[in-house]
């Protein structure tokens, strides 16, 4: 039934595009009758007076027959659109619509459109306030003529301030939504996992709940040949990937490594097995996750979950790609080369 009402709302929007009175009048009447019981505004006289005055303002300003027709259509369209919005708001689940909008317009444009709808009242206030000042300062017609440019400039100035406030508000809101993220980054073999493991150990020593997965490697002749998945909380370990044909249930192949299906499942379970407010380690986020595989889905959930902080291990050169892909706007970078005295600095960081 809600879907049927949404289609009815869309049909009302469609009729609003018509210039024909034969479409506009019945559609406006039908829509008003349909919403009469639900919307108390429709039963108030002042609502209709407001719609009438707003629609017929151009006719009051320019008294021509053509303007009367335009204003009449405007009034009917106002009624139609108001009813369509009522039906839409009542029957559309905004949370379900968000992914649809994102798919249709892309994330940035869908956000822009939703912001645009929300700031309409702010823009109206800016316009009216600036117009009031303009009228007070430029009472004569000549001064008013020159004042139009100043008026436009003043509106633009106020709009700029509004845009900047809006951007800052969105940045603050995003920061509040996202967990504290630390990215442990450095070149291949620089000790990223060692740093992550040391931090996890220090946090545990201080009684902080730690969760997640660490991926220490086994080396042969300076070359990493084996990667393990270690549960950061329990220390339990499973084989995650190998170059030596040890993996019997391969799920991915990347960089010469064959990744184990059971190893990945164990790692994902380790990531999910966390207490609220815990510090979660994810070792590591790389090309597999950038392609939407590996820990990608789990990480997306973790970023907005109840963790106190996230420590992500990311290879140098992939940090930008990872932060862009997973929309991590605020983060700090920890680099293993600065980790000369591991115990001491790990203690400092854990204390911090």
């Amino acid at each position, binding site marked *: 039934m809600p879907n049927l009402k949404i289609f009815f709302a869309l049909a009302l929007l469609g009729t*609003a*595009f018509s210039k024909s009175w034969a479409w506009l009048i019945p559609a406006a009447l039908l829509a008003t009758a349909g919403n009469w019981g639900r919307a108390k505004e429709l039963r108030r006289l002042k609502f209709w007076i407001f719609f009438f005055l707003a*629609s017929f303002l*151009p006719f009051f*300003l*320019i008294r*021509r027959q*053509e*303007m009367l027709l*335009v204003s009449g259509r*405007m009034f009917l*369209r*106002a009624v139609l*659109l108001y009813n369509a919005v009522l039906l839409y708001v009542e029957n559309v689940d905004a949370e379900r619509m968000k992914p649809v909008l994102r798919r249709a317009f892309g*994330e*940035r*444009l869908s*956000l*822009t*459109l939703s*912001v*645009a*709808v929300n*700031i*309409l009242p702010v*823009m109206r206030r800016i*316009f009216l*306030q*600036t117009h009031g*000042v*303009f009228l007070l300062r430029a009472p004569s017609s000549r001064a008013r003529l020159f004042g139009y440019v*100043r*008026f*436009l*400039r*003043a*509106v*633009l*100035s*106020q*709009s*700029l*301030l*509004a*845009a*900047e406030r*809006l*951007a800052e508000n*969105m*940045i603050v809101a*995003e920061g509040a939504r996202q967990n504290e993220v630390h990215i442990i980054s450095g070149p291949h073999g620089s000790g990223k996992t060692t740093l992550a493991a040391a931090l996890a150990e220090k946090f545990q020593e201080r009684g902080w709940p730690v969760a997640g997965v660490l991926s220490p490697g086994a080396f042969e002749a300076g070359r990493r040949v084996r990667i393990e998945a270690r549960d950061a909380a329990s220390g339990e370990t499973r084989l995650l990937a190998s170059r030596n044909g040890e993996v019997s249930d391969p799920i991915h192949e990347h960089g010469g490594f064959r990744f184990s299906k059971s190893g990945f499942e164990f790692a994902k379970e380790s990531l999910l097995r966390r207490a609220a407010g815990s510090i979660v380690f994810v070792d590591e986020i790389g090309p597999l996750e950038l392609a939407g595989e590996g820990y990608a889905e789990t990480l997306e959930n973790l970023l907005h979950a109840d963790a106190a902080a996230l420590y992500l291990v990311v290879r140098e050169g992939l940090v930008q790609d990872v*932060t*862009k892909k997973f*929309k991590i*706007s605020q983060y700090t970078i920890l680099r293993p080369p600065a980790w000369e005295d591991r115990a001491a600095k790990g203690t400092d960081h854990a204390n911090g």
Partner: protein
Amino acid sequence: MNRDDYYTVAYVAVFGVLWGAVEATLGTILHAVGLPLKGTLLTAVGTVIVLAGALRMPARRGLPLLGMGVVAVAVKTAAMGVLKINILLSILAEAALLQAGVLILGYTLPGCLLGGIWACLWPMGQRIFIYGALFGEGLAVIFDEMTRTGSAWLGVPVKSVTVLLLGLAAAHAFLGAVAGTTGWLLGRSLRKNRHAEP
């Protein structure tokens, strides 16, 4: 999304709404008054607004002018006034032409001039593009109507088609150049004095 993306979203939304509001309010009044070049006048005001906004953006990522056009279309659609598909398509086309101008020559005075001129030439070419290409109306009929309209405005015989068309194009381009320059100047002055009071 990072910090710059949020600024882009906010600027595109605010200045797109402003353009849409001008199209909806001033557009309805100009439609009723029946001024010559009313579409171009409207485009010129929109050009000033979006160029000033775009010039003030901290980071001009993607296609901000086109984004403002999309927002303006959304506002115009919900504005209850004169609703015509070709008006909505025209706003998008003007935004795309403005964007093309500044993409070629940058957010500089020449870029704003080029974008402004192209955008303001659109109302002259829109009948041919939209009615001709979309609705299949005969191009000869449109051409005939345009020459007659120009003849009435400029007081030149209909036979002087070339002069008429050049005159019309020059009038549109002049308005576009004025709008582009004003947008650029306003954008620069707003950048210098960001907290200007009305």
